[in-house]
């Protein structure tokens, strides 16, 4: 009884903290919408900053979670069913967090109506927005079906398949927003799309592992043998995703290091906002290499603490990697803007950008917490 009271107390304190963060965030949102985006430390050279980086990170994580949920829901692998409902819910919450971030990044969110009435089908931003909106709607309906106990009807299965397709295409679209800018050589090409898809799987599997293990720890429910074997499989998926991103990052690193194209040389010079060790970016070392080494050690691989620590490192590392790529490609003025701006733009997020970021994360965490408490996220087909 006392334990339950204490747990309730902690829960409501947690909700209170999130509530405060959200209230501050709403005030910031009002301020940004009424006063303008000069409150951000962005400018006409460094156009997209932390709120857009947070959107990319959360949207890709949501796609990664949806792709993992497809293992039981689309491909019918039953041993993954105990985490399917939770994965769908986490994907919805992460995507909503991302939408908050991009909504506050837009100069005029009220003109979004034209995206529907005047779509430009040649625009990757249009496709990205359309597919993520569809993904959100489908995920909500899919969750509603599962919550009602309908795991196997044609409607439920179709919703699962559509959400899987959306989650597969949407990261490619985020990548193509960058990959189609011929004016910025460091982004142009198909690499960004492939990179975003791999990053989605990586951050999605990291959040899945981190959340499930921390949840087991916090609730004190322990991990059943069935779940333990499932988490071991998830660890292997996580390690696989980590390896894929490491390979892609190394290929990118060596190509960028070998070329003498001026734009790439300039980009490389300023692509280490978080510092470097022996020429390699700190966030890659701490967010990719270190977790990979730890998770590859047979003695450490399946220890709960190792898995929580490595997945947390990857979650922070992937955010930093997205920010790094976003900022480095915009650090130098294009054309005549060099007349009004310095040769290289330095950037640190303003308090308002931090609040937008915190708001997105707080909304996501609030949904996680409420969902966990009231929506029976561990239920599986009867």
């Amino acid at each position, binding site marked *: 009884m006392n334990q339950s009271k204490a747990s309730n107390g902690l829960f409501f304190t947690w909700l209170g903290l999130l509530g405060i963060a959200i209230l501050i965030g709403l005030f910031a949102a009002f301020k940004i919408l009424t006063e303008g985006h000069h409150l951000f430390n962005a400018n006409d050279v460094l156009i997209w900053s932390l709120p857009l980086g947070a959107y990319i990170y959360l949207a890709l994580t949501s796609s990664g979670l949806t792709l993992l949920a497809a293992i039981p829901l689309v491909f019918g692998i039953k041993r993954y069913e105990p985490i399917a409902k939770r994965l769908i819910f986490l994907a919805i919450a992460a995507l909503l967090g991302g939408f908050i971030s991009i909504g506050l990044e837009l100069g005029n969110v009220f003109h979004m109506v034209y995206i529907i009435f005047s779509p430009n089908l040649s625009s990757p931003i249009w496709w990205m927005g359309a597919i993520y909106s569809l993904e959100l709607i489908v995920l909500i309906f899919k969750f509603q079906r599962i919550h009602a106990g309908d795991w196997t009807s044609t409607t439920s299965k179709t919703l699962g398949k559509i959400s899987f397709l959306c989650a597969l295409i949407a990261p490619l679209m985020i990548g193509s*927003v960058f990959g189609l800018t011929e004016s910025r050589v460091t982004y142009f090409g198909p690499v960004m799309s492939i990179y975003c898809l791999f990053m989605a799987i990586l951050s999605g599997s990291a959040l899945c592992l981190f959340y499930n293990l921390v949840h087991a720890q916090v609730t004190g429910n322990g991990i059943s043998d069935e779940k333990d074997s499932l988490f071991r499989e998830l660890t292997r998926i996580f390690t696989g995703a980590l390896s894929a991103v490491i390979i892609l990052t190394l290929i990118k690193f060596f190509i960028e290091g070998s070329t003498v194209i001026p734009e790439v040389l300039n980009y490389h010079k300023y692509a280490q906002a978080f510092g470097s060790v022996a020429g390699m970016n700190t966030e890659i070392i701490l967010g990719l290499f270190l977790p990979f080494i730890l998770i590859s050690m047979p003695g450490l691989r399946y220890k709960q603490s190792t898995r929580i620590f490595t997945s947390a490192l990857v979650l922070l590392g992937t955010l930093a990697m997205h920010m790094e790529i976003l900022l480095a490609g915009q650090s130098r003025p294009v054309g005549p803007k060099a007349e009004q701006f310095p040769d290289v733009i330095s950037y640190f997020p303003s308090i308002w950008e931090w609040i937008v970021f915190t708001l997105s994360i707080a909304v996501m965490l609030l949904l996680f917490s409420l969902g966990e408490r009231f929506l029976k996220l561990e239920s599986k087909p009867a």
Partner: protein
Amino acid sequence: MPRYAMVIDLQRCVGCSACSISCRSENNVPDGIYWSNKITETSGTFPNVRYHYIPTLCNHCENAPCVRGCPTGAMHKLENGITMHNPKKCIGCKYCEFNCPYGVIYFNWTYPHKSWKNNEKVLEGTASPKEEVAKVGGKTIPYYNPEREDTLSGIRPKGVVEKCTFCDHLVKRGKLPRCVDACPADARVFGDIDDPNSKVRQLLGKFRPFRLREQIGTDPHVFYIRDFNPANYQPSKGGI
């Protein structure tokens, strides 16, 4: 339907910036935003040094990346080749600005012409900026040009992008873009690139033009011809 283009003669251009100043007045351009701008470069070391000056504006590209990327069609092409923007459709995603290879699109990060709302007097006995605006009955700025409203918001609101429109409101009435008209050296020539008899076509045939970042395939419609260089050197058979 004509396809408009501009030729800038760099030998005639004296770098006086009359184009930029007249553009600001004509289009009510706010502080920090440059529809008409320049690229300057100093090469060499003293005494063998040279200063380059290239006036810039929207290139009204045939294959405009800003138009292709705009999610709502706010950035669009007119039939006469002008790349136009509709602030009423703009969601302020800034993708056009991100995507533009020429750095000629700007975002309204705050309310435009904010300084003119200031009610503080600059010096005792003088009028405040706000009083100055009220005195001339101007809209936001004392030098407000209402003709701009013909085809675009007179002053674009915060949260949307803006850029050069080749003064489409003047072109529509058979007039020249303001920067062309205001150039004291007649360095700018504007006209129909599809008309073989136009001055633009004549100049492009007579001189070897170049365009900015041609290699990326955007097909810019602003061409540069000639170059001004008063330097001279002693003829010789080599430097050994």
